[in-house]
């Protein structure tokens, strides 16, 4: 219920920003310079702030040529796969180190090591190891996602209040029952919060990876291509598409999280 109210407010807020932009573009139309220096040559007919008319034209072209839809499909697929692989790996490892104190000292330095390694610094290495195709990109996302979800799962397990474990043990629950019915539900919120953060990060990773290593079709490629021309309407539509996808992913995450923690007392 609250989720829908928040979603509606978010749409209104985004709509307001879009309307302001349209207004600025309309005012700037004909007044802004349309010739820019690109470092080596001049480019004419550059729309610094495209009006809604040229955005609609460009959007229609991108839709009719199927470029946008295909790009979305390819990039989304990479994000979903990377998110799945990374989450499974990260959560499993986090649960393990959360339960077994000895493993923690083994895993912890590696997590710290990778936590602040920029994802894209790994890209050249991954391209060499896993090739130019899908695997290097998916694995790049997975690496990032795994680090974050590892932390969520590890601290989620460590944060389960002692009283619940004691109560369960004294009711005769064995380790497996305690894990399934006490530790997992108690840690769910922390785990899922980390998955949500990781989902946002997955989009950052993939779009930048596709910009650096652009292949058709993909959202990163679309943006890279638009930059080469340059075509500002394409850039704006590409950016808005990425934003909308992040928004949808986050909303899905929010709904799942709310479902998984429906027992929790929630502040309005």
């Amino acid at each position: 219920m609250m989720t829908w109210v928040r979603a509606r407010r978010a749409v209104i807020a985004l709509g307001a920003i879009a309307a302001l932009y349209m207004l600025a573009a309309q005012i700037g139309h004909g007044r802004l310079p349309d010739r820019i220096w690109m470092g080596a040559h001049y480019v004419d007919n550059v729309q610094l702030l495209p009006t809604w008319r040229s955005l609609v034209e460009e959007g229609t072209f991108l839709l009719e040529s199927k470029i946008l839809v295909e790009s979305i499909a390819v990039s989304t697929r990479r994000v979903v796969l990377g998110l799945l692989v990374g989450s499974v790996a990260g959560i499993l490892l986090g649960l393990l180190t959360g339960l077994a104190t000895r493993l923690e000292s083994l895993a912890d330095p590696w997590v710290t090591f990778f936590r602040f390694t920029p994802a894209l610094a790994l890209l050249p290495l991954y391209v060499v190891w896993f090739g130019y195709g899908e695997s290097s990109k998916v694995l790049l996302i997975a690496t990032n996602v795994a680090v974050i979800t590892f932390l969520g799962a590890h601290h989620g397990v460590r944060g389960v209040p002692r009283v619940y474990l004691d109560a369960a043990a004294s009711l005769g629950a064995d380790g497996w029952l305690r894990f399934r019915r006490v530790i997992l539900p108690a840690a769910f919120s922390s785990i899922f919060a980390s998955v949500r953060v990781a989902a946002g990060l997955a989009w950052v990773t993939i779009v930048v990876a596709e910009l650096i290593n652009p292949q058709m079709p993909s959202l990163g490629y679309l943006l890279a291509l638009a930059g080469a021309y340059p075509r500002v309407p394409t850039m704006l539509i590409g950016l808005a598409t990425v934003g909308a996808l992040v928004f949808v992913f986050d909303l899905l995450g929010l709904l799942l999280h709310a479902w998984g923690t429906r027992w929790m007392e929630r502040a309005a």
Partner: protein
Amino acid sequence: MTASASPPVLEAVDVSYAYSGPTPTQALEGLSLELKENEFVALLGPVGCGKTTLLRIFAGFLRPAKGSVRCGGASIDGPGSQRGYVLQEEAIFPWMTVRKNVEFGLLAKRLEASERRKVSEELIGFIGLAAFEGAYPRELSTGMSKMVEVARVLATDPSILLLDEPFGALDAQTRQRMQDALARLWAQRRKTVLFVTHDAEEALYLADRVLVLSPRPGRVKATLVVDIPRPRSFETRFSGDFLALKRRIWEATGLQGPHGTEPTTA
């Protein structure tokens, strides 16, 4: 202790326990006690006298540094569902409905869903929460949550109940209602109960025997047999026998003191 033909169900012999750490604390020192079958014993003592430590030792979460604890003659070496333990803290599982909470111990015993349901329905009805069967704990009051915890422990039909200040966080009125509910439960399905409290009246109202503990390190300072007939009622609390016993408890704590001294156990 009183000589008895039947062996003690629960006993502690010369138990000592100390917490290590930056400020080592001797919680218990040479404490001995025993509970007979179906006896309701209240353990009364000031805050910090080691009551909870003793209960955690009986529950199997702590091992005495010295001395021994036994349950039905066997040494206690870990938690087990024959000793139903209600923690002092709120330990109801917030992610489970009332019914799932009550059925948890039966799940551990691998009972079928229909059998679990039969037990939980009866117990939830008995504590008067049938309407809340499908509710999550956040919808319950503190007193209701505590009763669900008691029911959850009773579901596995333990022979012993270890209750750690179950009504400590309640207002006086609710506390009295909960005491009556517990007394009814105990009358219906006899158990050996060790009930920790810092409230003298509560101890007297519920127990067959009250053990008064000394301040830290805790040891049994006095034993009072409460020979007030059951069922006890609101009137019991104001009867002469009751008040006389209450006075003896205060005297046993040694805190009746000169005029104007505030007792610290209230």
